[in-house]
């Protein structure tokens, strides 16, 4: 396979986004979905190839570390696939005239940016794609319902930009110390160059900077208000997709560049606090939309905790949690489109659309980790990873996971109870057909995963091993097969 | 021992118990008369009372359960008597044991309660509530004694208990081996017999708050029979646990009557306790003494 296919992951959606306004009206509607379908195909192909051996693309045939590198291991391939599918699922089909075009091109740009984040192997390039994703999601969030959304987005922009600034400082610091931004090169130099106070400081700056999108605790105050005001479609994308890619990037950095003492602890503490605050805040939430927002903060806290566990165990658990949440939370947000209000608004909604209610229950149970649903295995991996660690902090984390799950159960079942309450004269709205269809598809995926869990477990293990293989990364990137027309020589 | 003999024993034991019970009632009333400076009833008076009640012209019943209750009350004790070993006859004592006996003797109380309940007499209900409370009261020290006995004799088979005591003579009697428990047992039996001050629930004479209030004719007669059995059972159990059971009939009878005489002679000098006082007076000292006795017996 020509590795340049990897570049299409970014180039194709961008091209479509640029051209969208120029395409004549009738064809305009189909451009985006078509591109995303192609992207899906590419993702599958990449998955096939990468699960054997990762794909490396030296963009522009400039040998790393000079040029920018795209590196696709099976995790990245899977995320590319997820990007395409989720963007397709939450594609803005309806809407009036120009706004629709803009939303569509922003969605395409988001897809491109997320794809770039998944595959990029260059620190500064990651920063660029991160910013691209940021601007696109700002636009989508602000394009929502009414001015409240725009105020919320403004606050989001301020916070996000400050975060990016921090990340930029971190990158600058790294460049000061190493003089390169290529991840493989950095991984090679890190043990000597990226040590001590500046190294840890750089990690902290980048963590807090990019953590804004990953809903990392301390920098996630934007989430509730944005999710409460944006279109649920957008909330689903932000909570389900963008946060995960930011997370993925952070984990790559943690694995490749910053294997320092202290980084894991920092991640653990932040994740722990995120889970604690998120779940408890959700317990007090007075409407379903913000409840879901806080709960996703909590879930990402869990993911951070998982990744904070050193070694492959942590990676397995983290990937499992991230993928599971990527599956469940979008579905819940879809259902929250009509049922996003206060509990009083949804009382007795199950009578009006039973299927929607059943789906909500299913996803809620999986979120709680009720076996044999996939959520259980994710939680099991997280807890056994934490339990496997010696010492108090990790066990404290496990305790927090256990306790917050109880809280989670209370507020989720509060909603379920409202949905199924039998009091007459309820004002609940019917669930929209599209929401039921979309979440139904996700539910089908969920059940398939639940049934084939033993098989997928092996795949998960392999993915984690591939992701944790630093030496393999370095050698594959820095000694690539000779390009067709060799240009320059590796230093 | 073949089944025929066993069956005859089972038939005879309740009869014996009934006769002795009648005699105890007589003695009880004689004692009361002596204390109150009266002559007291003639020899067969208790029997006459029962016969008279059964032979009454008008027999009122509040329905099937009203009768069933009495049947349970009498029948339960009849069954209980076959579990109390007496000289020469063991009945099914070895197949049931002290604990079973204790629980079988609760059935008559339940029957009485059911019968009274069926009468739909508000005062009857009050009386039953008090009766059951009293049962709750005196059964606590009673089971403590059962425990002590079972621990000391290594089992709750009454035959073994008696055998053990008779083997070693007076020194090995329960009263000698567990004196505190013997005292507590006296209390428990006293309360169990439902004489003053523990007879608030029978109180038939004054304002009708007793369970017997609806009982006339056969029903009351049944209760009299039950009382005879009750007296015998309580005393026989006490004798078998603490006083070495019956080596032979004369000794056995002496012990029985002595045991009954003590509380009876005390009874008539007491006023009547209210329910809560019953609880208190049985739960405070007897229980403490009993527990102390168990502790003593176990160390």
């Amino acid at each position, binding site marked *: 396979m*020509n*590795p*340049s296919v990897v*570049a*299409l992951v970014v*180039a194709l959606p*961008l*091209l479509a*986004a*640029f051209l*969208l*306004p*120029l395409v004549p009206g009738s064809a305009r509607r189909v451009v985006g979905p078509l591109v995303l379908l192609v992207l899906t195909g590419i993702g599958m192909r990449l998955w096939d190839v990468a699960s054997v051996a990762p794909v490396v*693309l*030296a*963009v*522009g*045939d*400039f040998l790393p*570390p*000079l*040029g*920018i590198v795209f590196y696709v291991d099976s995790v990245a391939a899977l995320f590319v696939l997820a990007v395409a599918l989720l963007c397709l699922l939450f594609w803005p089909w309806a809407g009036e005239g*120009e706004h629709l075009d*803009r939303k569509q*091109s*922003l969605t395409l*740009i988001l897809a491109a*940016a997320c794809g*770039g984040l998944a595959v990029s192997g260059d620190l*500064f*390039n990651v920063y*660029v*794609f991160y*910013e*691209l994703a940021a*601007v*696109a999601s*700002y*636009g989508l969030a*602000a*394009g929502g319902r009414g001015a409240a959304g*725009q105020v919320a987005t403004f606050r989001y922009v301020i916070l996000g930009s400050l975060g990016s600034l921090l990340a930029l400082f971190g990158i600058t*610091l790294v*460049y*000061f*110390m*190493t*003089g390169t*931004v290529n991840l493989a*090169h950095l991984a090679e*130099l890190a043990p000597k160059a990226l040590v001590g*106070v*500046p190294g840890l*400081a750089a990690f902290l700056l980048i963590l807090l900077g990019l953590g804004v999108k990953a809903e990392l605790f301390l920098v996630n105050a934007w989430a509730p208000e944005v999710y409460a005001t944006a279109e649920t479609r957008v909330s689903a994308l932000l909570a389900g997709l963008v946060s995960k890619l930011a997370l993925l990037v952070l984990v790559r950095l943690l694995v490749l560049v910053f294997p320092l003492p202290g980084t894991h602890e920092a991640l653990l503490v932040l994740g722990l606090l995120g889970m604690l605050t998120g779940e408890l805040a959700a317990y007090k939430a007075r409407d379903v939309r913000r409840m879901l927002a806080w709960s996703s903060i909590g879930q990402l806290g869990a993911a951070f905790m998982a990744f904070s566990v050193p070694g492959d165990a942590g990676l397995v658990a983290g990937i499992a949690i991230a993928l599971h949440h990527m599956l469940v939370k979008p579905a819940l947000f879809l259902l929250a489109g009509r049922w996003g209000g206060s509990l009083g608004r949804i009382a007795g909604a199950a009578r009006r659309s039973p299927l929607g209610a059943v789906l909500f229950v299913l996803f809620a149970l999986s979120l709680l980790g009720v076996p044999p649903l996939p959520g259980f295995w994710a939680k099991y991996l997280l807890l056994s990873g934490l339990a496997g660690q010696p010492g108090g902090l990790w066990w404290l984390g496990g305790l927090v996971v256990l306790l917050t799950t109880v809280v989670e159960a209370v507020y989720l079942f509060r909603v379920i109870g409202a949905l199924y309450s039998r009091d007459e004269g309820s004002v609940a709205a019917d669930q929209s057909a599209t929401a039921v269809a979309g979440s139904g598809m996700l539910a089908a995926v969920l059940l398939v995963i639940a049934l084939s869990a033993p098989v997928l477990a092996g795949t998960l293990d392999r993915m984690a091993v591939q992701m944790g293989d630093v030496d393999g990364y370095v050698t594959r990137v820095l000694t690539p097969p000779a*390009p*067709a*027309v060799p*240009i320059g020589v590796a*230093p | 021992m073949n089944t025929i003999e066993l069956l005859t024993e089972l038939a005879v034991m309740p009869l014996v118990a009934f006769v002795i019970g009648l005699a105890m009632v007589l003695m009880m009333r004689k004692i009361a008369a002596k204390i109150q400076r009266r002559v007291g009833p003639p020899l067969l008076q208790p029997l006459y009372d029962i016969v008279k009640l059964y032979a009454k012209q008008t027999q009122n019943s509040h329905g099937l359960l009203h009768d069933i209750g009495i049947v349970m009350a009498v029948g339960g004790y009849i069954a209980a008597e076959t579990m109390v070993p007496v000289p020469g006859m063991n009945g099914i004592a070895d197949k049931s044991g002290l604990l079973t006996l204790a629980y079988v003797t609760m059935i008559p109380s339940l029957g009485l309660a059911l019968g009274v309940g069926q009468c739909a007499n508000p005062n009857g209900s009050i009386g039953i509530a008090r009766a059951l409370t009293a049962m709750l009261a005196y059964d606590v020290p009673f089971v403590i004694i059962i425990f002590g006995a079972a621990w000391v004799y290594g089992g709750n088979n009454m035959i073994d208990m008696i055998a053990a005591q008779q083997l070693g003579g007076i020194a090995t009697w329960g009263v000698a081996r567990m004196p505190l428990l013997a005292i507590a047992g006296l209390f428990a039996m006293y309360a169990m017999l439902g004489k003053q001050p523990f007879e608030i629930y029978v109180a038939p004479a004054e304002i009708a708050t007793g369970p017997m209030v609806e009982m006339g004719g056969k029903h009351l007669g049944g209760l009299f029979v039950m009382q005879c059995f009750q007296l015998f059972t309580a005393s026989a159990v006490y004798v078998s646990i603490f006083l070495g059971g019956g080596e032979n009939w004369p000794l056995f009878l002496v012990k029985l009557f002595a045991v009954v005489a003590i509380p009876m002679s005390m009874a008539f000098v007491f006023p009547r306790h209210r329910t809560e006082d019953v609880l208190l007076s049985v739960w405070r000292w007897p229980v403490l003494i009993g527990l102390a006795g168990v502790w003593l017996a176990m160390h």
Partner: protein
Amino acid sequence: MLTRYGALIFAAGFAFFLFVLFAGQPLGAPPMTVGRAVLDQAPAAVGAANIVTSVVLAYRGIDTMGELAILFAASTAVGLVLGRGRGHAAPTAEPGGFILQAGVDLLFPLLLVVGFYIILHGHLTPGGGFQGGVVLAAAFVLPVLARPAEQPSHGAMAWVEGLAGTAFIVTGLAALAFDRAFLAPLLGAGQLGALVSAGTLPILYLAVGLKVGAELASLLLRFTEEEAAR
């Protein structure tokens, strides 16, 4: 009040800590791990006299594509937030004075020329698509200040935006046709320092310039519209 002082203290502390961190770094003596190699190889490999340009367009071309996308996203988002459909010029806004109008007429062609010059010499001299693009944008916004009534149509802008961006990506994809990796420079390095050199870089820069210009111009025009609308 307390929070305000707290904020001040934290801001100062932030700057201080950064100073502590960076003062410890090799200021003025960067390792130049990659930079050195680039300096050595870029002229031969890319053929642009301006090595920064070869980094911007060749070595880190993807970054540039990304930032074009960011500009596009920003203007699209602004359009999504502000736009009420196509540009409704505000008739109320009265034209600027004579001097402004005359000055603008004088400046407009000049700015165009300068802009395109900067763009086309981006691979030789300091400057390039971005800088030139900004000048172009200025050229197109000035007339609006003078004559708010007549605005360049968003349609045209949109076409420029779209086509410029497309051109950049297509040039990148063209490499695939020659069995090269995405965004690989084509057409050979050429004579170092000549106007026609450095392969496809000038084309890319032209695309960049047009795109930047169009994006900025449309952004500014949106704002002016919004102002005029109230």
